[in-house]
């Protein structure tokens, strides 16, 4: 239980309405995008300034109360699930753009700023913020920083870490630090890089300096239909071998297409077993010169139907079909698990064949949507949580797929983070020795395990999994997973 002294101290920082302790007020914060986990926090605070966050973290440190700092709670790995009897620091009210400098192509934002807003504020100057997780309309920059979020354009542009230049943050004991700065280049140890993606274990970002890029002048987006998943996979290899560097290379299988079709009437060819989305982007002349090369490759790859986006609306339609696929799977199945493993690109075919085998052997349907350009798989494991044992069986399939990714030399997570969900596989990927090193580092930064306790590192007990179906914001079509 949290002491009344702690709440009393919080009440001196927060007015009623920004300090929530009643059961009904806490309910909305019980889970995140991975709805299988549900934990009621001891309390929720909604700070509006960096100083309030710093004071709050210092109080948590003093009273030994664990905290979870989070934005919109869209984590797909359970990374922002609260801690029982801990404090949840909700950062959505810290949503100011502190500085925007189009001349230097940077923006300094508070952690609660929504991802898409970073692009919206700069659109008039022809700039944008490149990382584009499918939840971009609701997820926050602070959450993106904590989990080094990805998106569909990572092969060419990298992940969140490659677009964050500086961070003012608070360590778990209340120490305020400044990493990096406004420049693209820095000197000294890259502590910024170590902080980003640390899943909240090193504290909380308060001000984040983002790098903005000039918006590509032209996009050329095509969607090619194949009679087999293997052909689509081979097409990816051909594109990569050609020397082209597309902004995105995405594949969906038949089951995923069915789901998107049901949700947004994507009108995929009925007999296609896979579709491949390829997007070239850049200066007009460059894209125009690359286009015939890509077209020939796709024709040679066995695609039997190719649709090219003729305008921005058609491009958006292709991307909506792709980005809504996860949530749309909810139309096919009451429950599903999203996995996020990575395999070396040359092992994609092997991985997909093996996933198909696992699916057939277990009788559990698996839909595949993935970032083919960087080998980041997103198998969607479908189940009905009302059937006794179904969740456990689906979990077993998910585990087998993750172990496959490790065996093939890949990773257990490409962009969702380890969170609560994949902790059990962490040591299998990194081995005991390197896991221990990370644990010792966490303990040096946060000996009391105050900050996001229990996430990423496999050392404390996890809350039990239950089936929950879609997240409320997904049901409303406000957010997609990827």
């Amino acid at each position, binding site marked *: 239980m949290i002491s009344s002294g702690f709440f009393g101290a919080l009440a001196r920082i927060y007015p009623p309405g920004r300090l929530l302790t009643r059961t009904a007020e806490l309910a909305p914060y019980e889970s995140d995008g991975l709805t299988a986990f549900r934990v009621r926090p001891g309390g929720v605070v909604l700070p509006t300034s960096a100083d309030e966050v710093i004071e709050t973290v210092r109080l948590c440190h003093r009273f030994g109360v664990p905290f979870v700092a989070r934005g919109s709670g869209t984590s797909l790995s359970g990374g922002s699930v609260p801690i029982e009897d801990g404090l949840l620091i909700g950062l959505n009210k810290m949503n100011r753009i502190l500085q925007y400098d189009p*001349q*230097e*192509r940077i923006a300094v934002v508070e952690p609660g700023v929504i991802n898409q807003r970073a692009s919206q504020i700069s659109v008039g*100057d*022809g*700039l944008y913020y490149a990382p584009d997780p499918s939840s971009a309309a609701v997820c926050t920059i602070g959450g993106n920083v904590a989990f080094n979020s*990805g998106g569909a354009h*990572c092969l060419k*542009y*990298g*992940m969140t*870490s*490659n677009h964050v230049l500086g961070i003012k943050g608070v*360590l778990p004991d209340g120490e305020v*630090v400044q990493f990096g700065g406004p*420049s*693209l*280049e*820095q*000197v*000294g*140890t*890259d*502590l910024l*890089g170590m902080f*980003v*993606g*640390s899943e909240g274990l090193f504290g909380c970002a308060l001000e984040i300096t983002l790098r903005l890029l000039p918006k590509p*002048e032209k996009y050329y987006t095509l969607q090619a239909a194949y009679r087999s998943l293997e052909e689509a996979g081979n097409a990816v290899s051909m594109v*990569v071998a050609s*020397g082209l*560097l597309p902004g995105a290379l995405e594949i969906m299988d038949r089951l995923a297409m069915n789901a998107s079709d049901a949700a947004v009437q994507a009108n995929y060819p009925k007999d296609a077993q896979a579709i491949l989305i390829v997007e070239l982007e*850049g*200066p007009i*002349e*460059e894209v*125009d010169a*690359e286009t015939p090369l890509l077209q020939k490759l796709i024709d040679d790859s066995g695609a039997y139907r190719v649709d090219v986006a003729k305008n921005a609306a058609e491009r958006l339609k292709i991307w909506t079909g792709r980005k809504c696929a996860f949530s749309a799977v909810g139309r096919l199945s009451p429950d599903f698990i999203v996995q*996020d493993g*990575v395999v*070396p*690109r*040359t092992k994609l075919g092997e991985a997909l064949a093996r996933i198909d085998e696992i699916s057939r052997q277990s009788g559990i349907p698996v839909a595949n949507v993935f970032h083919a350009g*960087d*080998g980041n798989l997103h198998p969607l494991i479908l189940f009905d949580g009302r059937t006794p044992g179904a969740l456990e069986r689906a979990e077993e399939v998910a585990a087998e797929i993750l172990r496959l990714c490790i065996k093939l*030399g*890949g*990773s257990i997570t*490409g*962009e969702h*983070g*380890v969170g609560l969900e994949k902790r059990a596989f*962490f040591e299998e990927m*990194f081995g005991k020795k*390197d896991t221990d*090193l*990370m644990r010792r*580092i966490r303990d*040096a*930064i946060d000996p009391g395990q105050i900050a996001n306790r229990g996430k990423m590192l496999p050392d404390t007990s996890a809350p039990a999994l239950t089936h929950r179906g879609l997240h409320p914001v997904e049901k409303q079509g406000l957010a997609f997973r990827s």
Partner: protein
Amino acid sequence: MQQPSTIEELQEIVRQSPRVHVRGGGTKSALSSGAGVSMEKLTGVIEYDPSEFTFTARGGTPVREVETLLSGSGQYLPFDPVWVDQGATLGGTIASGLSGSGRFRYGGVRDFILGLQFVTGDGESHAGGGRVVKNAAGFDFPKLMVGSRGSMGIITQVTFKVFPRPQRYATVRVKVTSPLEGSALLQKLARSSLELACLDYQPPGEVVMRVGGLASALARRVERITELVALPVEVLLDEEEQGVWRAAREFSWMPTEDTLLKIPLLAGQIVSLEAMLSSIGLASTPRRYSVAGNVCWLAWPADRGPADLVAILSKLDSRAMAIRGKPWGVLGSVRDAEFQKRLAQILDPAGKLACRY
């Protein structure tokens, strides 16, 4: 000079020594002078599959060897490593955190390092990151090593992401009349969607930029750059244009006796830095603003101490690293010392690897 040829030998050296200072190719004298351990025998590419866009090599591998291998498959390291001709190694490139003019387009060394193995101050060998191009698992040790100058661990093996190399390049050179005009041109071009590969300003009066891509589109892209620049330009091709960027990355403009400094900044600070240099009598010291004005490479005269420099850094709210010449290390204010100190307690408990330079 000790020269371990296996990781085990290196681990033994670390365990036995009270202090370990490692060097790669020795191209950055301010960082490597006085080193007692050379990585020149821990070399070799371990794995390279062009279709993965990755390679893995030992820490002491010369960058030149890797570039030759990559170019055979039409690929390259987009962050444009420096002092390649003079023998810079992969490990030294990471530990110094240096990237060349070409980092403008796709990012610096930090953006292309995927995974590594390293020996910590207690002599243990560890791994971080992965071998695939996308990975969000675990603490990002690969990035932590960037710029750490050996203080967080000794890099024994690395995996990098690579890209297909543009088919052809062209370079456009423009004369400007003042730092104000130069920095304004940098800002204007950096904001354009013309996708320049490099964009540098050499005071007092030259802005130079590089564009790369398919040969068939290059002439028209150069025309559009010329239209945007709206000043008389000189267009360089082939060997002549390659020479411009080779000279930049080998720092052949830099007097060898001076101290070479790297100063991160913004293009909008160039005018004020230029004024400060003039005011202390350094108006003619060799320097180059690279990466669209995000870094100043500055030759600090050998007969000058760092006092004026520290004052300049304070006004710029920036820091500097001495790379060649005087072993001054990193100068300027530090606001992340507590975090670094706690990491070092684990990675270098006995303080064997601590930077003393």
